[in-house]
Structure formats: C-alpha cells, structure tokens
C-alpha cells in the first residue's frame, strides 16, 4: 500500500461518479431487480464520491500551502488575513517531516477521508471473495497453451 504522501484514492473520482450515476439509473434498478430480486444500494458510491472529491480538494489546497520555496499566491486585493494565512502555510511546511512521513495541521484532515475510502473498498473486496472456490487456482498457465496444435505438428 502506498504510504504517506504517495497515497491516493483507489479509484479516480471520475470513476466513483460514473459508478454512482450508473447505480442510480433506472436501467440498473431494473437489471439489479432482474438478477437479485431487490433494489440496488447506491449510497456507498455517493459517499465514496464525496470523500474522493473532498480529498482531492484538501490535498490540492495542502499542496499549494506546503510547496517548498514558493510563497503562497496572493490574489489582488488580498486582506492582511490572507497574508497571515501564507505565513501559517510556511509554518505548516516546517511542520512536515518527510523522513518520518509525518505531517500536522492540514494533513490530519485527510486521514478520515483516506480511512473511509479504504474501508469502503476493502468491504467490496471482502464481499467479492467471501464465496469459496470450486477449483484450485493455478500457479502457472497450462503447459500446452502456446504449443502448436497436434495436427500442425504432423505437417
């Protein structure tokens, strides 16, 4: 698993949006009822989409604040409060210890989102794997898969 600053949502946010929209469609309702005899549950896709979007927004904001050597961008007419925020941003940068993958301040806001998305996807994987297999998995493909056909050998 990618740790620290390398973690990202398991799926792009666009994928969560597409899944939620598909799940919420009338066509999917009909197909799901046809297969399972009950209505589909789409709420988790929406929650994951929201978490993903919020994670991206906060990560983007944190990246702007903690960019090394670059002062916080100042928009025209920025109030002194904004300049103070810039100084706090540089203070946040000082609070990030890359060797320990530790950060504080804005970074902590990302952890619940990360945990929510990971737990949601882990639940999906568990649900997919909960039924035992009928056969034993292979460690390598069949030996004859790439061999010529028997009649080809006779030519």
């Amino acid at each position, binding site marked *: *698993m*990618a740790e620290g600053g390398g*973690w*990202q*949502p*398991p*799926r*792009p946010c666009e*994928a969560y949006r*597409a*899944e939620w929209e*598909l799940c919420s469609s009338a066509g*999917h309702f*009909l*197909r799901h*009822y*046809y*297969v*399972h*005899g009950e209505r589909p549950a789409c709420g988790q896709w929406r929650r994951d989409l929201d978490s993903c979007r919020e994670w991206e927004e906060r990560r983007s904001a944190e990246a702007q604040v903690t960019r090394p050597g670059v002062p916080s961008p100042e928009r025209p007419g920025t109030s002194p409060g904004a300049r103070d925020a810039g100084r706090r941003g540089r203070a946040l940068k000082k609070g990030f210890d890359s060797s320990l993958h530790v950060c504080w301040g804005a970074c902590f806001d990302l952890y619940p989102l990360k945990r929510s998305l*990971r737990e949601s*996807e*882990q639940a999906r*994987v568990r649900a*997919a794997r*909960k*039924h*035992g*297999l*009928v*056969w*034993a*998995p*292979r460690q*390598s*493909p*069949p030996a*004859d*898969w*790439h061999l*010529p*056909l*028997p*009649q080809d050998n006779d030519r």
Partner: protein
Amino acid sequence: MAGAPGERGPGPAAGEQLQQQHVGCQVFPERLAQGKPQQGFLSSFFTNNQKCQLMLLQTLETNPYVKLLLDAMKHSGCAVNKERHFSCEDCNGNVSGGFDASVSQIVLCQNNICNQAHMNRVVTHELIHAFDHCRAHVDWFTNVRHLACSEVRAANLSGDCSLLNEILRLHFGLKQHHQTCVRDRAIRSILAVRNISKEVAQKAVDEVFESCFNDHEPFGRIPHNKTYARYAHRDFQNRDRYYSNI
C-alpha cells in the same frame, strides 16, 4: 457437439447450445433450407467460414467483453492467438460453439452463428471457459462440478441471460429470473457435452451455484451490457493503483 465424430477426438469440454437464442436464425428456416440467400451483405459474397472469420475479427477488435477477457488472459500468461486458439468449423446439431480443453482451442460453429451480436456472445461465453482453464485446475472431463461451475459463470457473465435475450426466447420473468436462466442454460450446456442424466447435471449445478454465480472474475461485476463491460475493463486496467491504495 456432444458425441460428434470427426477431427477433434474427444470433443469440446464445454459447449453452448443454440436453443432458439437468436430468433434471426430461426425465423426463416424454409428460406435457409431452400438455399435462398440470407439477408445481409456478408451472406451474398462469402462462405460460412469467411463470414465466421470476419465476424470473429470484428469481435476480437471491438467488443468490450472480449477485450477485457483477452487482457485478463494475457495477464495470466495465456495470451490468445486468433489462428491458434480459435477455429471456425461446421457443427452438428444446434450448438453455437465450444471450448476444447484437450488442445486449448475455442470452436465456433460457422453454420450456426448467424450475426455479429451472436458471435460476440459466443466468443465471450467460450473465452470465459478458456479463462477458467487458464487460471485454475479445471477437471473438465471427469469432474462434473467443475464443468457446471464454468457453465454457470459463462451463462451469468456472457449476456446469455440478459432480460432482452430471455424475452426474445419467449421466456418471461422478472424477479431473479436471471438466476433461473443461468441454472437452466448451464444444465443444457452440460448435457450437450456430457452423457449424463439431467438429474445429475442439475445436482451439480445446485451444488456449485452459490459459489460460481458470485464469481465474477475477471469482470468484477455482472456485465449487463457494454457499458458495464467497459467499466469493468477500466477497473481491470486500474488494478495496480486500486490494490496498492486499499
């Protein structure tokens, strides 16, 4: 193709029955019997074998179900070669195709596959058998439960039992009818390739159904149509990012 004599020896390990699944092939049997040309450009200028080859190529290059299966098999070490792993042949009876595990080849019944949509579905169905053969020790010839499992998966994931296809077969039902269709078609496919009683086939399907109906590899879901198949392919291509971040 159960028991069919000829070049192939023991015959396919797994097969797919025609069973009125495509009304287009059944609607004008008199016209076909009298040798009148079928409607469509391909029928006028090409032999059955040529049509089969052309439709197969179209399927392999464009169908999202098949493209995912081909990628998944390549990932498992079973890269598919069109000339080696597919064969267009005339078949006895009303079978659309089969997977011959003894030589790892998919048989396409060129005299029974009547249009591109049918070819798409037959190739998907047989590639699911090939995928199972590639990733697991499937005892096709002596373990009817293994055969039943692959047939359940193929009927479930290939689109064989879509609502539209069932309506076209005049099989009407809604709530959980998909599962009824999967059971029924799996039993028919088993009986097409194995000389066993319907009761034995039904018992095998019942024993493996819960496990195999819920085994959606490599799709990760039941691909109800091409949109679902494209999403499944997207997820497969994204799997490295997915598993490294959960």
